[in-house]
């Protein structure tokens, strides 16, 4: 092997070794790397029920209920397979809307209600001017069609 070939082998070797290490680490930490669990994962028991975790999904339309005179609110997080009701007291970000992504941080109670102490809004990748959004809404009978893929994951 010429010295140059040896150096090429070194570069390829480094890349292969580090990629393998990263792959193994990613597999081992798969669950910890997840920023949130969706309602199906919660139903399947893959979310830690004894401690705080993040619950992510869409705000089911028509489920947001605010208590008059306080910051108390309730809504349902859905992934269009399973639902989890959420209770929260506080201010929500601007993008917290029905049919939009949301990530709630808190604990699942024994009554099945997720008590959140932090609400983050999750935006999807679609951008459009208000007029276009209005036109699409009108075409679909006044409701914005939602991308049911609340995880960003591979489109199926």
């Amino acid at each position, binding site marked *: 092997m010429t010295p140059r070939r040896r150096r090429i082998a070194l570069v390829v070797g*480094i890349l292969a070794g580090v990629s393998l290490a990263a792959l193994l680490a990613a597999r081992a930490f798969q669950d910890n790397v997840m*920023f949130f669990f969706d309602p199906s994962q919660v139903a399947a028991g893959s979310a830690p029920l004894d401690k705080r975790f993040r619950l992510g999904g869409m705000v089911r339309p028509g489920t947001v209920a605010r208590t008059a005179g306080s910051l108390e609110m309730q809504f349902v997080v859905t992934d269009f397979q399973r639902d989890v009701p959420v209770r929260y007291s506080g201010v929500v970000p601007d993008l917290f809307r029905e049919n939009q992504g949301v990530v709630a941080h808190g604990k699942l109670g024994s009554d099945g209600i997720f008590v959140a102490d932090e609400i983050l809004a*999750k935006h999807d990748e679609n951008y459009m001017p208000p007029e276009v959004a209005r036109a699409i809404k009108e075409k679909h009978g006044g409701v914005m069609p939602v991308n049911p893929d609340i995880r960003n994951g591979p489109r199926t």
Partner: protein
Amino acid sequence: MDWTWFHRLASPPHIYRVAGTLTPWFAWPAGLLIVSALYAGLFLAPPDYQQGEGFRMIYVHAPSAWLSVMIYGVMATAAAVGLIWRMKVAHAAAASCAAIGASFTFVSLVTGMLWGKPMWGTYWVWDPRLTAQLVLLILYLGYMALRSGIDDLGRADRASAVLAIIGVVNLPIIRYSVEWWNSIHQAPSVMKMERPSMPFDMLAPLLMMLLGFTLLFAAVMLVRMRAEVLRRERGASWVKEVVS
């Protein structure tokens, strides 16, 4: 194939001259593109139906983030070429990329935080995408620190090249973090195989900015590379001729 042009690139005085000639050809279009893209993005593009005017942060955020990843790729490639072919000019090229890449990474992180507060409701969360981008910044800084920590130039070149190549593994992690794992960060709107998820009048300023930033990177890199070549060759007779 005739490789003469490639071998000539290995000659420091040649690269010094070529870089000097090319710089304005990148710098002027870069300036024009960035100014017009800013105007188009901030004034001509329509507001977003969900985010309103706040979405305009994308015109600085996304191109900076793309550049931060692209520059790392350029840096690691140059470092590998330097390592394999013992080409000092390639090491000089890699070294001149680092600070620019770190700057774009920093800009992408800061603009993302400023956007995240009103939109997501937080400046920062330890999300896979955000964390991987922070790791990119640390890789750039580590590369720079490693280079400045080794006095012997040849050793600094080789050690930092190995670090640069190791860091390449982070690039696909950044790109696919939003697809492999649940993330608060949205999926790509533009950098994907399918049609971009935004209309043309929103997309055009974004692509102009991407091209402008790319040309800016090229211009700044060439200037930095000339300085780096001069510094490395400070004893050589051609440098004395250039400087006098």
